[in-house]
């Protein structure tokens, strides 16, 4: 695709291209743009929280509005920012890393994205329609079942729809990785980012349905008069907590494992060494994924499940620190004796190691059930999960973006601006959250709108807010970096980092069909092996031949639109049954599209081998 062609295309054509695309590379960009947008939105909410807490007895925002901002900050960051940004990296990289031309279900891949976006828009529409959800990102019943207005309804419908998208994406990656690997790419030759994607997809598959059910029950209670969580009807609100955390704990591993994968790619490349203990890394990833399902009740130590349950879950939780520790040491040993290059991607990776270790340590402290009675619902917990989520997941996303930007966009992000972002973000992060450990230990409860003066909390909160401003500054610089790089950055070749894995074996920009000839994989770090044998390219596993590609389709977009409409119908039919029309129209659109998809054959098309060298198949 030459740039002149791209520039000559009208805006409308480009828009249509993205609305109908089933190309994993473009879907990755869609995830990146929307996830990035929601990240900025969630950051804005975070700033409002920190400004409100900058001094005691502040009234920057009202108490009710604070609850909305707090709820939306958590919900947005987890479901609408972190998850899609991770999916952006997975879409951009995983098919390339396994030597595939596409994912297993290109159509469903697009559908997954549009469902996520529809859900995110529904959630945020609440701001303009009478107020956002205000029961916390955990939406505990009966707070959530009795919260007035429609806020929590938007939470339920928005998460339900975007959750369906996530589930689809998970299945897609599972099948892609099992079925579409290039010849020779055995499981134990897969790059670690692919491995973590694989395990994470399995976690999504087995964790999200519990959230689906929880959300259905909450929706039935709020909108259709059932009594699951209503004690006056014999219901039991602890059921929600179980369902939420059976999903919720695996969810935090869904977030962190891909970040582990990112670091496991970056550290070897910039240490010029193969990853230390590859087998142990794979083993630890799988074990973390497995144990992740056995620990959910550590979020419920204070509910009163009894000493037996608390002890079992405490021990199970602490056990996860073991495979995590294995990983930490393997990263350190990868660095040891390496020929280390320090650039922005590497700075994030290096700083991740101590930061995450602190988060893991506070995790083990929280896992001591008896001590958790003190920690629970204080800022200590807030500090813990920000150390793992920001210091782990967000650092991982930044690192991954710096590392794979040349693959996704053909340019290297500006290093000066990148380092400026890193240092302000890194220092700002520790300023914001380190002090929160102590605020928590001194008894400052989480989620409160304000605090009283002279209780030893004033200075700590001030420092925390100053740190937040530094983080915001760093984020803005990153946005500027993206703009500057797209305008002024220079195109680089296909392998700017002297990479080891297959995604670097392709020319820049990545052709539409990824690999002209499917590569033959001869070991771990497939591309590196070829380089060591003196070759510049992968050995092909097949002769040049016609390439089969999937057709693009507008149906995924329309299906998501249908659910979007139906979502509003469900929310408002309690006020006026005329809104049931929206439910029927929306669901009709959805089912109609499914019907069309089932009935209309879609065989895809072929790029003929004579055309392969010309317009990259466009």
């Amino acid at each position: 695709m030459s740039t002149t062609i791209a520039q000559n295309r009208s805006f409308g054509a480009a828009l249509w291209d993205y609305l109908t695309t089933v190309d994993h590379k473009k879907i990755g960009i869609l995830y990146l743009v929307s996830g990035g947008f929601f990240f900025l939105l969630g950051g804005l909410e975070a700033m409002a929280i920190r400004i409100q807490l900058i001094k005691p007895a502040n009234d920057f925002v009202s108490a009710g509005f604070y609850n909305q901002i707090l709820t939306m900050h958590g919900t947005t960051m987890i479901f609408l920012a972190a998850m899609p940004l991770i999916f952006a990296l997975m879409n951009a990289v995983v098919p390339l890393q396994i030597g595939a031309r596409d994912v297993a279900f290109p159509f469903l891949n697009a559908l997954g994205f549009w469902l996520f976006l529809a859900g995110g828009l529904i959630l945020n529409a609440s701001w303009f329609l009478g107020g956002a959800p205000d029961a916390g990102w955990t939406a505990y019943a009966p707070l959530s079942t009795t919260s007035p207005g429609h806020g929590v309804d938007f939470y339920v419908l928005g998460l339900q729809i975007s959750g369906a998208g996530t589930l689809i994406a998970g299945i897609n990656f599972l099948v892609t990785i099992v079925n579409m690997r290039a010849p020779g790419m055995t499981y134990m030759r897969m790059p670690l980012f692919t491995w973590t994607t694989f395990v994470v997809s399995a976690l999504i598959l087995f964790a999200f349905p519990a959230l689906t059910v929880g959300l259905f029950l909450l929706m039935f209670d709020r909108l259709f008069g059932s009594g699951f969580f209503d004690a006056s009807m014999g219901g039991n609100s602890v059921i929600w907590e179980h369902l939420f955390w059976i999903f919720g704990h695996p969810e935090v591993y869904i977030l962190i494992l891909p970040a582990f994968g990112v670091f496991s790619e970056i550290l070897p490349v910039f240490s010029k060494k193969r990853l230390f203990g590859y087998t142990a890394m794979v083993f630890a990833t799988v074990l973390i994924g497995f144990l992740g399902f056995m620990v959910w009740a550590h979020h419920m130590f204070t509910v009163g499940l009894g000493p037996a349950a608390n002890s079992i879950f405490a021990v199970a939780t602490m056990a996860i620190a073991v495979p995590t520790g294995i990983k930490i040491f393997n990263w350190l040993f990868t660095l040891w004796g390496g020929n280390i290059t320090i650039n922005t991607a590497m700075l994030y990776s290096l700083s991740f190691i101590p930061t995450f270790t602190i988060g893991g340590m506070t995790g083990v402290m929280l896992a001591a059930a008896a001590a958790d009675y003190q920690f629970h619902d204080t800022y200590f917990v807030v500090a813990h999960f920000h150390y793992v989520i920001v210091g782990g997941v967000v650092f991982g996303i930044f690192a991954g973006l710096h590392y794979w930007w040349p693959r996704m966009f053909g340019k290297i992000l500006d290093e000066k601006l990148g380092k400026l972002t890193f240092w302000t973000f890194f220092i700002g992060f520790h300023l914001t959250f380190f002090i929160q450990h102590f605020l928590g230990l001194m008894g400052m409860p989480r989620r409160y709108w304000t605090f009283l003066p002279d209780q030893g909390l004033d200075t700590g909160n001030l420092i925390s807010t100053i740190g937040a401003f530094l983080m915001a500054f760093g984020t803005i610089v990153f946005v500027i970096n993206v703009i500057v790089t797209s305008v002024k950055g220079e195109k680089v070749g296909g392998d700017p980092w002297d990479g080891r894995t297959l995604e670097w074996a392709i020319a820049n920009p990545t052709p539409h069909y990824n690999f002209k000839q499917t590569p033959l994989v001869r070991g771990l770090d497939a591309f590196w092996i070829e380089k060591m044998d003196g070759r510049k390219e992968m050995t092909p596993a097949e002769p040049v031949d016609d390439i089969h590609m999937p057709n693009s389709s507008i149906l995924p977009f329309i299906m998501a639109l249908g659910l979007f409409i139906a979502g509003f119908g469900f929310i408002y039919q309690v006020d006026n049954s005329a809104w049931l029309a929206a439910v029927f129209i929306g669901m009709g659109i959805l089912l109609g599209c499914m019907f069309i998809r089932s009935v209309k054959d879609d065989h895809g098309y072929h790029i003929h081998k004579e055309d392969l060298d010309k317009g990259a198949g466009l």
Partner: protein
Amino acid sequence: MSNDTLNPKVMPEEPEKATLEGKNKFLGFWFFLGGETVLFASLFGTFLALRNSTNGGPSSQELFGLDLVFIMTMLLLTSSLTSVVAIYQMKKNNFAKMQAWLAITVILGFGFLSLEIYEFYEYITLEDFTFRSSAFGSAFYTLVGFHGGHVLFGLLWILTLMIRNAKRGLNLYNAPKFYVASLYWHFIDVVWVFIFTVVYLMGVI
């Protein structure tokens, strides 16, 4: 994919897995059923926690009888068997017989669904036992209703496939579709066996 590769002279033994698309669909659908299992497990867990929370309303012992449910069970189990035969015919590339057995499957499925609707209708009108009467009522209708919704969806799906392909017969493009639809149907059947045990059998004793 050209037309002759999808319509080979000799059909392979496992036409549902003969193409990459077919293999993907086959595996992806198994994964999907794994997710569905967690979904129903969550619903079962909720039901077990709430099955005695009758809130002064009718209890399962007062409500449930096994006669109707037994007939329903037989209908659904038989339909699972007939769908096995249908897929057996598919593998023998005997399209007409496959369609016939699928038709029987669909008829049995609709029989099941009508009886279920009749059962719900009786509970609501005669026993005043509704979705809103108690946590038990909510849990019962949600679990059994989710299953019923799956049955309905499965029936419409199989019917769509049958009608769409009636004229052109079997090929490597639609064989995986028939196959995963039948997998779905088996899954529904297995879930029903659990509902029969956990909801009805355990409910009457």
